[in-house]
């Protein structure tokens, strides 16, 4: 009986846990108006030390250009298992990219950061174009980037 109770409690507990384990986060990246082709962007999470944690999205069709998103490339090792199913088209100048991703609760309010690396053909490559801490409050004001990114924001 005790055993049954224990098992039930564990199961319920696990279910509850899995229900609150991940949250959907909406991340919006707005680009400046610049001259040139579409920008390649890598949006990813780093820990408090700036160490790569996981990929959230890679914008840009040709994997051969991914190495120009340097910090992300270094962190992820550009292994396709890191970004499978998380890629899309490059973002043209002045455009917006909105993505919805599931993020472990454990990573929220734990010092993790959302970071964007960017690159454009024959132009500057930006490591850490923009960066914002991942907290349960979200961001009240979008953070400005230093390269092609005009503003980075997210909501939970």
């Amino acid at each position, binding site marked *: 009986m005790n055993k049954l109770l224990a098992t039930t409690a564990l199961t319920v507990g696990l279910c509850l846990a899995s229900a609150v384990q991940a949250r959907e986060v909406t991340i919006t990246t707005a680009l400046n108006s610049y001259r040139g082709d579409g920008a390649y962007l890598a949006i990813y999470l780093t820990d408090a030390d700036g160490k790569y944690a996981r990929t959230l999205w890679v914008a840009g069709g040709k994997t051969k250009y991914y190495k120009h998103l340097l910090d992300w490339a270094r962190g992820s090792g550009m292994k396709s298992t890191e970004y499978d199913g998380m890629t899309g088209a490059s973002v043209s100048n002045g455009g917006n990219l909105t993505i919805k991703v599931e993020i472990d609760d454990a990573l929220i309010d734990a010092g993790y950061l959302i970071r964007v690396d960017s690159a454009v053909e024959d132009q500057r490559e930006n490591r850490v174009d923009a960066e914002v801490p991942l907290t349960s409050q979200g961001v009240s004001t979008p953070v400005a980037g*230093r390269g092609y990114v005009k503003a980075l924001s997210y909501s939970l």
Partner: protein
Amino acid sequence: MLRRLHSLPGLFAALFLLVVATSGAILSLNPALERAAATVPARGKLNVAEVAENALRSHSGIEQIERLPSGGVLVYFTEDGNSGADLINPLTGSIVSAYDPSPFFSWVTDLHRAFLWDDRGRAAAGVSALFMALMCLSGIFLLASRAGGWRNLFAPIRAASDGNMSPRLHAEFARVAALGLLLSALTGVWMSAVRFELLPEAQELEADFPQSVAGTAPAPIGSLLALQQVDLLDLHQLVFPFPDDPSDVYSLRTHQGWGFVDQATGEWLSFADYGNAATLQTFIMELHTGEAFWWLGLILGLAALTVPVLSTTCTLIWWQRRRSMPKIIGNTPRHLADTILLVGSETNATWGFATSLLKGLLAADCRVHVAPMNQLTDRYPKARRLLILTSTYGDGDAPSSANQFIHKLEKMPSSLALPWAVLGFGDRQFEHFCAFAELVSKELHQRQWPQILATDYIDRQSGPSFEHWGMALGQALDLTLPLHYTPLPRATKSLILFERKDYGALINAHTTILRFESATPGKSLPKFAAGDLVGIAPPGSDAPRFYSLASSSKDGVLEICVRRQEQGICSSFLYNLKIGDFVNGFIQKNARFKPSKGKSPIILIGAGTGIGPLLGFIRDNKAHRPMHLYWGGRLAESDSLYEDELQACLADQRLSQLHLAFSRGPQSAYVQDKILEDAAQMRALITANAQILLCGGRRMGADVATTMNVILAPLSLDVAQLKKSGRYLEDTY
């Protein structure tokens, strides 16, 4: 076949290629401009560590240093939160200019590779490049085959006999530019194929990202050994570590490969060679863009500039080829036809007969392929007979649509032995009546091809004799061939006579100079120049007679010189015209009888009405090149044609010397006598590369040729040789 392969894609792609080539030529300037602005030290002079040190003198917050393929050194930096990029002098670190890629060149780049139309445009540009490559290759083979072998590829190209410049211009430009265009086209095709994944793309081998670093205090950049080992000329890109991040590293790309350098020890943490495939890929791209080879870029750009000329001449050639053959209804493709009907025509009149014959043959259920004689090939798989209708030009030469026929016939394989029949067209007044038709028959006999029926001749476009020949042909072929000849309608212009001047009444050689203008007020005359012909059909006749023009259309006057012949229908008709009368005429270009271009002397020889075109040439001689006129008439008091105007031309030096001979009167002489008197001067002029143009009656022509041969003998030359090199032109009648 080769020609089709060459011209069809050309016409199709001409417009696209025009855009690709012109934009390419503009883009080719970019590497040279960048190079001109860049300071490029010699190899061994400067290493990457030194360049980085220099750059740090003028910039803080450097993120990366790049060497552009053209040689410029570029620094990306962020100072006080502001990002920027400068071109620097690598020797001093001083700023050359802020880096600001030209929006114009990026626009042209987009036009060049994608017609400003994204991926669809890129595909179109790739296909255009493929067409270009095909045309270069087929064109090179065509050039070699026309020149008579690879060794003659760069031999001088002769102008077409009809004076048409387009084919020659096309060939001249093409053989100079072909290799450059081929290189651009092939590399372009390759780049496009890689882009659309039709060819596998070589992946650059990548260095492992370093897992651990020394982590101690960063060393000054100038002391880093790995950077010292790389020459500036091999640098592609150096990315700096984040400031104050001891775990970060330098990322260094060179021409050979990519690796990471420890910021504390200055040692390579990892390095990977790109691999041969990727290096080759980059090299091909740099060949195409000229980025790394600015001089090659300029050469390719110049080659690309010929494309507008090539497309224009290509369109003209195509148009002229179409025009050289009237629209034929019921023509069967070459490979399906049982009857091959080839036409040799100078004035297009023979095409009228060909059309009538075609109609007859179609009614008799033949499948007929009609083409100019020059299009003879050995590929007539279903052909059972070869019919040839041809006129003759001048002294027994081939008419312009047949001038390559004999040459092509000689190359035919002996296996091809088509039964044949030849019909010649001409005018019995001329000495070499139907001589070319005879020559063609002789050649076919020699090849022992079976003859269907004896070669026949049609005098003065006689419809009845043509229909008679059709009956004979039908009998020989066991076909019913009722032919009905209707001449091709010519686009004639209505002309009105507004001035005439008569000569020769005293000696019963009635000659007149007739001056016409356009009969429709305000409408200009068709385009012509002195020496061209006007065709006029007298009332009641379909066969036009041709008269040499003494004026150019830009004079606003159409002027001819006519002598009334005893039984000449047309000359009588013209001679009897009154001021205000109308005639219908059409222009027949006569490029074979025109002074050569240049400054060399011209000797004009004529008699009687032959003065017409010669006077036209003198009138046009505003450049005052030496012109000598020898002219023969009968009686000075009666038929001194153009006397006043010739004196005026002498006075203003359009004419250098005037030698007149009159057969009657106190000092009786013929024109050849005057020439013989001046034998020494004649030889001097010929040695000075003079050209002779002769116009007049056939007998005078023959007499002058005999005299000229005597004069030329000491120079080991004769008239035949001069004729061959285009320095003795005749227009005789």
